[in-house]
């Protein structure tokens, strides 16, 4: 699971208000190189929940991201860091944890399992 996806995943357990973001408990992180595409990154910058990305990256061992996204047109060094965090860090094994309920969603072989149990629906 890459952080571009983590930035969209919510915990939809009935009654949970604080559904996003899910905290990452990383057991195995791999880095996979992805082609650098500045236009795509600039477009994504507008959509990304920044704090969730920074915290997620930290949980996966990457601390280079600034606490705030730059307000003006972003330069290449920043975009490279953004690119690495968003697309190249891959959670192979671990869990996504709902901050409110504590429920853990497993990530196995890079695939998050977001299925809810019948009493959570």
């Amino acid at each position, binding site marked *: 699971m890459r952080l571009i996806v983590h930035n969209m995943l919510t915990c939809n357990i009935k009654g949970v208000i604080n*559904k996003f973001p899910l905290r990452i408990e990383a057991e195995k992180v791999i880095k996979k190189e992805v082609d650098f595409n500045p236009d795509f990154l600039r477009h994504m910058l507008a959509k990304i929940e920044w704090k969730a990305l920074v915290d997620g990256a930290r949980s996966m061992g990457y601390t280079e991201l600034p606490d705030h996204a730059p307000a003006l047109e972003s330069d290449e060094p920043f975009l490279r860091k953004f690119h690495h965090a968003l697309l190249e860090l891959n959670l192979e094994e671990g869990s996504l944890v709902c901050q409110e309920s504590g429920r853990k969603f497993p990530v196995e072989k890079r*695939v998050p399992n977001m*299925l809810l149990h019948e009493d959570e*629906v």
Partner: protein
Amino acid sequence: MKATLAPPSSLISLPRHKVSSLRSPSLLLQSQRPSSALMTTTASRGSVAVTAAATSSAEALREGIAEFYNETSGLWEEIWGDHMHHGFYDPDSSVQLSDSGHREAQIRMIEESLRFAGVTEEEKKIKRVVDVGCGIGGSSRYIASKFGAECIGITLSPVQAKRANDLATAQSLSHKVSFQVADALDQPFEDGIFDLVWSMESGEHMPDKAKFVKELVRVTAPGGRIIIVTWCHRNLSQGEESLQPWEQNLLDRICKTFYLPAWCSTSDYVELLQSLSLQDIKCADWSENVAPFWPAVIRTALTWKGLVSLLRSGMKSIKGALTMPLMIEGYKKGVIKFGIITCQKPL
């Protein structure tokens, strides 16, 4: 015209009294629990209520679907490639197509669906797509490539999700597409984030059509489009409360092997979308355009490669193969329809 388009006036003429029967109880699962975890269902209008037994059999259904696809996906991919849906053909085409002809037809199904929904003219607006019931990700990867959009796929099968991710990596698309195990009835996404919500032949598996449609609508962005391509039963005539017993019996036999809990009609979907105030709702019956598909699948199953692979895959695959003639029977007798329903969420 290759597809039969239902002109807008036919939507207005749908009997109004049917809308109330589609409020949440009506299309829910009414199941008896046989000794196996499978369900035999009757989906009839009116008075069906969800019982406690039905809730836990919903989880059994989910597991059944996951296991079915865990077992059969590899086999399908080996013989048919990465699109797990019908091909779109010119009606009455008598030419027997080659394997590559059928693959092209599967691509054409995606293109025709996008065109029918009016998405093709609005390409630039499609930035984020969800593929509900994504299989091994054929549609997701195709659409992501076509529109340069980000695409998330969800499936109940961990085997499919992993395979879909691996294929994305192999095709250098892993920055654009990714796949998760999740339930279409409880999608792990915020409201309104997808410009295009795509359900290609997954609606058949949903036990609660009303909930399924509600979730599709929930995650659609204002101005976004929903495309549902699905197996349905024929529309009921005025005054008809349910299918004939022989028709229901045919569908039940198919349901068991393919883990389909409930059938509804194209009209049912239209009315659900109307009740949720979607606009520009269109539907069509593409049954004539998919007619060559099941005979072609059976032919490939009967080749040496097909038979050997089937035997290796296991009982679910074998049962699936034996059920395919019932699909042909269903289409021939006008019970089963291949429908497309599309709409747009208001701004």
